[in-house]
Each structure stands twice: as structure tokens, then as C-alpha cells.
């Protein structure tokens, strides 16, 4: 099972902000962490991650700095800002509402089965 693209895109911002709330990190590590958290089910690409990081930086939810690691290699580290934390809290409230509502619905119906065709007749 792969998570649908729209859902990945919608959850991308809180996911990145949440991971960076744990401490500063860089692109590759963020991608690894997402992979790890979702058991490989979330299909993130570099084309999703880096432009998103740049956008969040432009909105000043994140700050970045270049640090050198292992000789000449440079790495761009991202850190969450106060307004990023506020945004994360706001997103979290919204997601809690959505998830809570979905849980309410699914509790009544569980376990989910596909109704047979013409079941109403």
C-alpha cells in the first residue's frame, strides 16, 4: 500500500515541521526519518522535500545555515523558528480535528468491508 500523492502533499508541512521540532536536521536525514516513521509507506521525493524546505524558509518558519562536514563537503541544516512552532501547533490542531472526526466515523463501521454489489436490492 502506498499513500496517495494528494495526502502526502497535504501532510508534508506538519511532517517536516514536526521532525524539525525534534532538533535541527538536513534534507537527507529528514527523508530518512520520514521513511522510518512511516515504515516506507510514505513516498517522498527530493522534488517534494527541497522546494518545501525552501518555501517554509521563505515563510520564515525555518532558518538554515551551511555547515561543513567531513572536509570540503557542505551541508545545509534547517532549524525551526518560533513562528514555525506556532504554525506547527496550528496545523496540529487542524489535523487532530480531522483525525478525530475520521476515528469517530470509523469506530461505528469497523471492521471495514466492501458491500456486495446490489446489496440494497
Amino acid at each position: 500500500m502506498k499513500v496517495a500523492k494528494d495526502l502526502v502533499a497535504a501532510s508534508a508541512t506538519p511532517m517536516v515541521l514536526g521532525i524539525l521540532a525534534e532538533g535541527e536536521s538536513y534534507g537527507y536525514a529528514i527523508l530518512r526519518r520520514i521513511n522510518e516513521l512511516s515504515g516506507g509507506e510514505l513516498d517522498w521525493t527530493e522534488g517534494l522535500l527541497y522546494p518545501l524546505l525552501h518555501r517554509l524558509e521563505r515563510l520564515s518558519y525555518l532558518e538554515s545555515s551551511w555547515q561543513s562536514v567531513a572536509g570540503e563537503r557542505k551541508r545545509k541544516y534547517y532549524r525551526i523558528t518560533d513562528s514555525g512552532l506556532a504554525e506547527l501547533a496550528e496545523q496540529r490542531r487542524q489535523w487532530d480535528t480531522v483525525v478525530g472526526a475520521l476515528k469517530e466515523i470509523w469506530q461505528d463501521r469497523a471492521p471495514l468491508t466492501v458491500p456486495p454489489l446490489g446489496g440494497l436490492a
Partner: protein
Amino acid sequence: MTAPDGPQELEAQFAQWRQYVLRRRELQAVDADELEDHLRGSVDELVAAGLSPDEAFLVAVKRMGSLDELSREFAREHSERLWKQLVLTGDSAGPADGPRARRDLWVMLACAAGALVSVKVPVLFGLSFGEDGAFYARNFTLFALPWLAAYLAWRRSARRPVIAALAVLFALGAVAANAYPLADDSQSVVVTSVHLPIALWLVVGLAYVADDWRSSRRRMDFIRFTGEWFIYLVLMALGGGVLAAFLFNTFAAIGIVPQEFVSQWLLPGGAAAAVVVAGWLVEAKQSVVENIAPVLTRLFTPLFTAALLAFLVAVVWTSHGIDVEREALLLFDLLLVVVLGLLLYSLSARDPSAPPGPFDKLQLALVVSALAIDVLVLIEITGRITDDYGGTPNRAAALGENVILLVNLAWSAWLLLTFIRRRTPFAALERWQTGYLPVYAAWAWIVVLVFPPLFGFA
């Protein structure tokens, strides 16, 4: 693969990959750094899992997905990168380009300041812009164009003989404008004021092609330069007009009327400086922004063709002769100039190796209809040559220009026709146009230097 080769080979692969990334306009050097770090992280992990560096690199690149998709995603966040910006200081250029671009800027500013100052130098000799209009009309281009030529000659690192030739020609222009005893209200003053700028502009052309003045390609570059320069000058004139209007009206609102400053300083000085700045803009942005003159010619060639054909049909339909009284010849000269311009700027943007297409046929129709109209006008004029047509410098100059343009367009039409029928290469048409430039220069100098004595300074 032997062990010592491994890291080196891998570095070469990274370098190559980086080049591919940097070729994308959406991806900049910082993005390449970031993505390269990502790729290295991926490679390191795969190597740790037991792959050879070579295999790890391939797998990591594959995982990153196609660069097309990546740059599309980047473009959504960084859409401003798709709009080429003119960088004034050259900061984003390569490290080697930076100082050069900055020096260029300073030389341009010095030349623009020189042009601005030289417009006001005659004031020291008691000539004012308001009262000695005829003096400024004859000399205005002599204040501005030498500075543009100086800037271009500096940029091309012109050799001494070229610089000497430029100086001699500008001095000759100054003599032509001022040595003859021409009355302020004489026709010759007007004729000189119109033709001296043309002659001097082609001197600027000599400075432009200073590095290789015989080359047809360089002359075509000068034609491109002329079109772009003109468009930039018009745009700056619009901006300058808005600036002057605001300056005038805001100060007038507090009871200070800056009429003298605007009309004596801002407009003449600004115009002279704009001549140099426009030249610099064209030079600075020629590789950054698409040329606008060919775009305009593409838009207007069909429209002008339709208008000229409609005019021809109307002439035949009503059998009404063309009225060539007064300055009508000048109007038709200008028509030929416009048609020549449309032809030239379409040529300047055309891929010389492309086969003839429908647009070339359209151009042939344009040129042929302009020629037909001009022949009608000339027939009309020869009918009246007895009532001393051509007896004044105005008419002689207009007639001469008409003949020069007619010859150019007639041969262009022939070359276009043979090109469309695939008998001659496109380059023949290009060479004809670039080879014709000295004819314009020669004619403009003749009008400026020979006409006044020939017509008794009338």
C-alpha cells in the same frame, strides 16, 4: 575497478552530475550543493550496505528521479528564476566576470556623465538650449554619439587606427554642422539636422564593429544593436517623460515652477545620457533577454503587408493618382524605411540555415507591394520634374534616398524570390544588406558635406 581509482572516479561522476544539474535554469549553485549532499548521503549508505561506489552512485541517482521532474518542482517554488533578471553589478556572474562587469558599469557611467556635461558646455559660450534651437538641432547628436562610440570602442578594445578614424569622422561632423554659413530658417539646416545623425550613427557602427569591421556577421550584430538600442531609448524616453511631468507638477504644487531646470537641464542632459545608457543596456543584456525588435517585426510584417496591399487595391480601384505635392515624397521614403526595417529585423533573427518558409513569402509580398507603391510615386514625380522638382535641398535629398532604398529593396526582393525558389542561399540576402550599410553612410555624408555649397546654402 582497483581500489585507488574508486574515489577519484566517483568524484568525476559527481562533478558530471553537478554539471547536468547546473544546466537547469531552475536549479542554482546552492541547490546543486544541497542536492549533491543528499546524493552523497545516499551513496554512503548504499556503500555501507555493501555496494561498490559505482553501483551505489547509479542507484542513488536513479532514486533521486529524473531531473526534469525535480526542476519542475523547484520551478513551482522558485518561479522568479524563470524570469531572467538583468544584474547590474554582476554579482551573480562567474568570479571572472564580476570585476569586468563592474568596470564596464563605471566606464558607461563616465561616458554618460561626459555626454550630460557636453550638452551643457555650449552654455559657457553664451548659447542656450531654449534660444539657440537651430544650433542644438544641428549639434545634438555630436554631444551624445561620440560618448557612445567611446564606450563601444573601449569595450571592443579598438586599435589606434580605428580610434583615429572615429575622431576624424566626428570632427568632420562638427565641421559640417557648424562651418557652413547656414541661416537658421534655411532648408539646408533641416536637411543637415536630419542627415548628420544618420552619418554619425554609422560612425558609432564603426566603433561597434571595431574588432572586425569587414565581417558581415559583425555588421548584422550592429543592425541588431541598432534596433534594440532604439527600443531601449524609446522606453527610457517614456520613463523620463513621466519623471519630468511629476517633477514639474509636484514642485508647481508648492509654488516653485522648475521649468528652467526641466527644459534646460533634465531633458537635454537626460536625453544625451540615455543615448549612452541604452547602448550599455543592449550590450549588458544581449545574452540575457530575448531581442524585442524581431518580435515586433514578426507582429507587424503581416499587418503592414495587409495595409500596403489594401492601399494598392484602393489606388487601382479609384484610379486616383497619388498626390505628390509638398512633402509627400518624404512620407513614402519613410514607408520604405519602415519596410526595410521590418525586413532587416526579421533577417536579423532568422536562422540562416533554415529552409524558406511561409514567413519569407509574406516578406516578399511586403517588399513587392512597397516597391509597387514607390514606383507609382516616382512615375508621378517624373511627370512633374519640369516644374523644378529637386530644385531644393529637401527634394534632392528625399529623391536620392528614395533611389537608394528602391535599389536596396528591389535587389532584396529578387534575392528573396530566388531564396524562396531555393536558387540562392539565405546568406546572400544577409550579405547584401550588411554590404549596403556603407552606401547609407556615403549618402548621408554627401548630403551633409556637399549639399549646402551645392545649393548655395539655401
